[in-house]
């Protein structure tokens, strides 16, 4: 277990820059999730830490040791791959103890560690079997057991759950989260699944095109997205984005047709951001239908409701603003006749249209 320090790391493949000048510190026993769409550089990043990928520039430190030039074998890292990488010719027991065998650990120690790893992953019943006959989830458990059996400095997980069936994947996610906190390994986890990231991470590192978009705890990521990409990528269903124009009374939506009234404090704050084009972002969970609000209620407006429907046990509605169709989610009781659309302004965000950055404007008024 160790602190990992990544210092201005860059990886280029020919003209393509996979990781671009990335720096990050990972605390001891922390679980950090690298999240991003495919091709964002998150796996390359992980392979650099593992020593499987040489970096073009930058250094990697484990505690106070510079490991940039070391081979994987000499870094004492453990890794679980996306696609199962068990040794098919070895039984489960031999697979788990392989890293200890490779180091020539004494027999007694091997027995003891194997026993421990098999117990925590509940693998005792399959120790004598070959990996081929096992379901994918159990195979990944074996891979995890093989990873932790040697007490690695850093545990690296490369989309370990994505090749597993949905129902079992959830099971594994729980197990993984529990064990990481129990065992306290410094862990770097790579995934494109924001649910996994939010669920497991102490901190999430959202990446795009080889760069970090935002680093933060899951709730920071959810509540204070750094920009439109972060806002879009985290949370489902995805956030609604609406072009807005300023108005003395608040904001005009949907090509000036609709006025979103804002409290006085917010209008003042809006005045200070300067002459920019703005976009409003709000999650469907924070859009509701309410009956008969007060006429001057802030955050409410009339809009055509296109459709109401249930998805699973959740109730949604589509409403129109100009040419856009937007999504809302009815959390409370069903609204009656001629309902109005209500934005929960405390959870609405304003973004700069040009840069995509979130602007520090509180739409709900004074703090």
């Amino acid at each position, binding site marked *: 277990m160790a602190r990992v320090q990544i210092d201005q790391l860059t990886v280029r493949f020919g003209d393509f820059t996979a990781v671009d000048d990335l720096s990050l510190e990972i605390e001891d026993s922390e679980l950090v999730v690298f999240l991003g769409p495919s091709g964002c550089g998150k796996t390359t990043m992980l392979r650099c830490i593992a020593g499987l990928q040489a970096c073009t520039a930058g250094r990697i430190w484990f505690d106070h040791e510079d490991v940039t030039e070391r081979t994987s074998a000499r870094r004492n890292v453990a890794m679980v791959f996306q696609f199962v990488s068990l040794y098919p010719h070895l039984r489960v027991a031999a697979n788990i103890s392989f890293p200890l065998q490779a180091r020539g650990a004494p027999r007694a120690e091997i027995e003891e560690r194997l026993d421990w790893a098999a117990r925590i992953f509940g693998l005792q019943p399959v120790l004598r079997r070959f990996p081929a006959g096992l379901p994918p989830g159990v195979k990944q458990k074996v891979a995890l057991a093989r990873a932790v059996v040697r007490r690695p400095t850093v545990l690296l997980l490369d989309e370990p759950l994505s090749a597993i069936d949905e129902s079992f994947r959830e099971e594994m996610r*729980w197990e993984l989260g*529990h064990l990481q906190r129990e065992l306290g390994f410094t862990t770097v986890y790579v995934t494109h699944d924001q649910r996994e990231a*939010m669920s497991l991470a102490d901190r999430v590192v959202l990446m795009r095109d080889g760069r970090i978009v935002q680093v933060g705890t899951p709730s920071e990521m959810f509540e204070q997205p750094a920009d439109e990409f972060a806002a879009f990528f985290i949370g489902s269903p*995805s956030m609604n984005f609406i072009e807005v124009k300023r108005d003395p009374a608040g904001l005009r939506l949907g090509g000036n047709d609709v006025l979103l009234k804002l409290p006085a404090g917010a209008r003042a704050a809006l005045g200070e951001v300067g002459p920019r084009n703005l976009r409003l972002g709000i999650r469907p969970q924070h859009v509701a239908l309410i009956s008969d609000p007060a006429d001057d209620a802030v955050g409410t407006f009339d809009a055509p409701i296109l459709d109401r429907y249930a998805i699973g046990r959740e109730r949604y509605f589509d409403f129109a603003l100009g040419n856009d169709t937007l999504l809302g989610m009815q959390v409370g009781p069903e609204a009656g006749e001629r309902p109005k659309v209500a934005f929960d302004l405390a959870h609405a965000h304003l973004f700069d249209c040009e840069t995509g950055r979130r602007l520090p404007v509180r739409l709900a008024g004074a703090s």
Partner: protein
Amino acid sequence: MLAIAGLEKRYRSKEALLGIDLEVADDEIVALLGPTGAGKTSTLLCASGLERADAGRIEIDGEDVTGLPPSHRDVALVFESFNLLPTLSAYDNIAFGLRSLAYREDEREIDRRVSMVAGTLQIDHLLRRDVEALSGGERQRVAIARALVRRPRVYLLDEPLSALDLKLREGLRLELRALHRSHPSAILYATHDYHGAAAIADRIAIIDGGRIHQIGRLDELFADPSDVVVGALLGSPSMVRFEATAQDGVLVADDLERPLGRLAGEVPGRVMAGLWPDDVEVSAEPLPGYRPAEIYATDFRGMDQAIQVQAGSHFFRKVVGLDVRFRQGDRCWFRLPPERIFMFDADTGTRIRTAVSGDPEHEG
């Protein structure tokens, strides 16, 4: 409309389907939800005619098509990953069906329809591209366009979104759903993802081990699960399950103090007791009638959090609000409302329809 009755299929000596009965109405999406190897793909292949059924009957719009080759059935099929003919452009892939002997249209009509569907799916700009140059999401869009453009009687979709990134999957799923709402058609949609099934389907058919365990609207399935498999596959988190023993008119879960409840009738031996997570009551404070437990793991979900609770040798999961932030290792207390308990046979998994009620002696 698609009707499948008594469908059986065997590959060499391996049984794949053991009698599938299923109907998809003209305006509904039925999701075939089940784990890998449950028989989803076999069902779709038999329905399309690409595999021959060993027994059973398949009807489309009332016409028996069991013996017909796939080209005579007028169905569309979208596979999980390989859908596009690499030798053709995106446009020619979409137009492919309309140039066949069976579904031939003249080129002007083809052009009209392709551009219309391409507009709907927002792939106009991709039409002249080589399919090798398309991304995964774009390829599935083209595949769906090819299905749409022919206006078949039935759509068969085999995990069409599973190979895509989560974010892309969620977006495309909503689009498909919206498309279906504006243009109703019969769709059979196979998936192993509960979220996917719940988000897209009008009705869900729970399939496992080559059998359909239950079929119905989501609320019907939640209200009246017929089988323990339904509980295991439905919901996120899925059904809370306790191995229990029925004895002397009371239900006792292994390793838990106090009976779960009183039985209205005689139930012999071992059962599986299950509740939907929403019905389990969890508290951070000890309350009368609540049982002590420990938080095994937590799962932050943005708007709320899910917790896994360990009570003795039992584990269950539940979604709770963010007002109390549970942490791994915290103490908690829970109550299992007896009237919400479903019982299933421990061996066969079938539902035991005996009511469970609160026990006045033990419940507060």
